[in-house]
């Protein structure tokens, strides 16, 4: 026992000894500059592997989509990988991909669309030329639009085949109400079917501008070479009017009252999703990283939230997260339980929530552990450069690179008062959406209502979404 105590003490001392060092560790250094046409460029050098990644991010995505355009940012993303002014057929495009050894893909999110090429470093200049050509001169041939509509709808089909697709959509619909198109990058079938060349050209003209984009180069590259090469290929991309000069799309209005969403799924377990409107970048930047710290307190294996719900056996799966967004980031709690444990699990969940602002609900050590885990996970995600570029693109669009650059420092400054403010402003006694997906195989819920399953400290008349 003595030896164990001694070693523990040494280990604890070691931790505090290294703590000041920890505060100095930072994300990989990047070089940032802007071309005359407004294109921001970010370069991250790392010579561990002889490949480079070229990524372009554009502030497009579902937040720019009214219902009649919902899903078209995604269709546009697919069209990028077809014909352009130089490679005038999809086959030519793919042949060039093959010749340059490019591994490519694209991603469409709520607040950004990303295009990325990873290739051998020897082919970097050709890859830059290829990326510049593809982003500036898509042809949008009608036959290719038709083909890509089928591909995108196929992607929709595959998502729809997920047993939780319908349930998740219903929860999202309740959460975002009339603003749902702004939060669904996958879009809606009718809008995708009705896509035209003219609509894609409208998107190109409005959003695909150098002053609304970020170019990221990571990997085995030389920053000096990049500074020389980028203007050669990307200055031909012409600046346009700021698409968000008028302040951009309106933010989603706050939820007015709690809402219950019920569904059944072909799955033996019961899934519960609880959602709140969380902080937005631009309105409450501090709230966004405080939200991250609080989520990482709750999800620690030793914290009472996890112990009361998961270790007790009430929940087989449990999560609590915040998703950073400029246009209202959702706070999400998810429980996977069994039909017979649902009642108890919900009671325990709301009892835990009632204690969120109790000063004894989490210890100082748990706050510091949350900060430490967040910092470390952020650093770990910066290691694989072919995916770190996606991380940079996300933060650029959602929060700005200055926010991301200070993120680790800002985390370390979060206080108990900040956490209490966040809980009072966004969670405790605030309207929420409670979604329950019952198992088709389990018993049917009797009297499903907010009175029975909702927050007992916020009694309201039940409104069940169809």
């Amino acid at each position, binding site marked *: 026992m003595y030896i164990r105590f001694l070693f523990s003490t040494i*280990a604890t001392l070691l931790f505090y000894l*290294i703590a000041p060092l920890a505060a100095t560790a930072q994300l990989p250094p990047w070089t940032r500059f802007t071309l005359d046409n407004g294109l921001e460029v970010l370069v991250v050098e790392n010579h*561990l*592997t002889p490949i480079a990644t070229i990524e372009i991010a554009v502030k497009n995505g579902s937040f720019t989509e009214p219902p009649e355009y919902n899903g078209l940012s995604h269709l546009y993303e697919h069209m990028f990988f077809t014909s352009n002014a130089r490679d005038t057929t999809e086959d030519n495009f793919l042949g060039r991909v093959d*010749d340059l050894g490019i591994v490519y893909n694209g991603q469409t999110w709520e607040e950004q669309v990303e295009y990325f090429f*990873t290739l051998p470093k020897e082919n970097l200049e050709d890859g830059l030329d290829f990326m510049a050509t593809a982003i500036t001169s898509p042809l949008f041939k009608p036959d290719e639009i038709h083909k890509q509509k089928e591909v995108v709808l196929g992607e929709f089909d595959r998502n729809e085949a997920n047993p939780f697709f319908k349930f998740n959509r219903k929860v999202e619909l309740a959460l975002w109400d009339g603003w749902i198109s702004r939060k669904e990058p996958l879009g809606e079938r009718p809008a995708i079917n009705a896509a035209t060349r003219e609509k894609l050209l409208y998107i190109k003209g409005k959003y695909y501008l150098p002053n609304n984009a970020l170019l990221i180069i990571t990997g085995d590259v030389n920053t000096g070479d990049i500074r020389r090469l980028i203007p050669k290929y990307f200055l031909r991309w012409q600046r346009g009017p700021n698409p968000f000069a008028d302040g951009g799309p309106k933010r989603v209005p706050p939820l007015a009252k709690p809402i219950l969403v019920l569904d059944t799924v072909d799955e033996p377990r019961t899934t519960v999703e609880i959602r709140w409107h969380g902080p937005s970048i631009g309105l409450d930047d501090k709230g966004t990283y405080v939200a991250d710290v609080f989520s990482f307190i709750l999800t620690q294996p030793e914290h009472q939230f996890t112990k009361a719900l998961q270790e007790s056996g009430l929940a087989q799966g449990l999560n609590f*997260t915040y998703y950073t967004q400029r246009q209202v980031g959702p706070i999400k709690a998810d429980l996977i339980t069994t039909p017979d444990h649902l009642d108890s699990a919900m009671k325990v969940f709301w009892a835990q929530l009632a204690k969120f602002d109790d000063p004894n609900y989490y210890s100082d050590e748990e706050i510091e552990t949350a900060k430490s885990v967040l910092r470390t*996970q952020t650093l770990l995600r910066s*290691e694989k450069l072919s995916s770190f570029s996606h991380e940079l693109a996300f933060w650029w669009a959602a929060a700005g690179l200055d926010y991301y650059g200070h993120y680790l420092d800002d985390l370390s400054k979060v206080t108990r008062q900040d956490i209490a403010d966040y809980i009072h402003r966004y969670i405790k006694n605030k309207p929420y959406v409670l979604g329950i997906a019952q198992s088709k195989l389990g018993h049917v819920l009797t009297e499903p209502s907010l009175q029975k399953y909702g927050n007992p400290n916020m009694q309201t008349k039940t409104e069940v979404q169809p």
Partner: protein
Amino acid sequence: MKQGMWFRVWGIVGMLMLISACGTTHTTNFSSLGEKHSDEETPVSDVQEFDAAGIHILMRQSTASPVVTAILYIKGGDVATPLDEPASSEYFTMKIVAASGTQRIGKDYFRKKLYRMQTGIGGENGRDYSALSLDCIRENFDTSWAYFSDMIRHPAFDSVEFVNFKKSVLVGLSSREDEPGAYSELFADSIYFVGHPYGRNYSIADVEQENIPLLKKHFSEIMVKKRFLLSVVGNISREELTKKIEATLADLPDGDYKPIAVSPPKKAFSPGAYFPPFARKLPTDYMLAYYLAPTKGDSDYYAYLRLRNFFGGFVFNHIRVVHNLAYAPNVDDRDGRTAVGTISLQTPYVDSAVKIIYNDVDFFQQNLIRESAIHEGIAGWATRNYMNVETTAEQAVSLGQAVIETGDWHNAFFSYKKLGEVTSQQIVDAANKYLRNFNWVIVGDTTNVDRKLLESR
């Protein structure tokens, strides 16, 4: 927070499972020529190889990466387990050591601190080697190494972990014959490697014999410096690493280790067809073929890689796209000191599928591939391979694996140049040398299956 968290701790455990060659196939392809490589042939020249306190070290320093990975390879693996010990000894030992904390640091405290640092410590067994791994960010390396080295020297062998793990393994073993895919692989292993060092698979009887004193004995036998290879990648200098090893691992015994000879199994030189009974009636037949493949150290490895790429494409195209006989026919390899090529598919039309596969075999054995076709797509292949070794953990795994399996760390890195030098004639030669002596296992309804056809190549 961005959506889609990445849990690194599981990442390295998964990687070690992939490299452990204990029944998992994978498709990572690296440069392989056995002769000395010049630096021009590989993109990496800054790997250091040295001894510290009697332990052989491979080290690549990267100042750019925030992560340090250290993998202690323990040569021998399952094949070196003495016959009077249960075949599952290495498996149990690695798992229980990594899960138990140390004699000085209790399991709960150990886990709590690792969680706080997000440090991953894991243990995996393999046929030819096992590994204990450490993966952490640089600023936590000192503390993490203290925990890791203490686990190596004074593991706790926690009895609760042992009991729980034993239960879960027994459940897994009792159900492994229920799933036809896993069962066909298990059966193919037992047939193809009969009488071979790789043929010793653990059974329920082995697991039931396991107990903590046995694990302690096994651990003390294998933890000798002569068996060790420590592969480290990250922002650490040779001097710092040497000091750490001297301060923490120097007093481990030198011991003795002579590798067991592993050559291709006898079954690799004659065709065979086996139809094991299965408890349930299946809607389709599960087909799995084993054949001899070159190891990474063989001179014709690159030619074979290119052949496998073409052959796999032909098989997929003809069986799936043209004839729609199976959804996912696949040609793959399993690395090791002797390597196995595999063909797997599920179809009720066994004879038709085999005829198509053998037509494809004939094609590659009898026809020269156009040189330009050989070179198409090579650059993309190189990119994908390098994307598989972007992290310190991936590099530490690859470096150690290359040294143990081929004797040369250069083989950890894919050589674009070597793949580009493959000729049409080398591909024909590889097809004639390797695409033969198929040993088939068919699980399902084999009433009308033509055994002679299966055994004809």
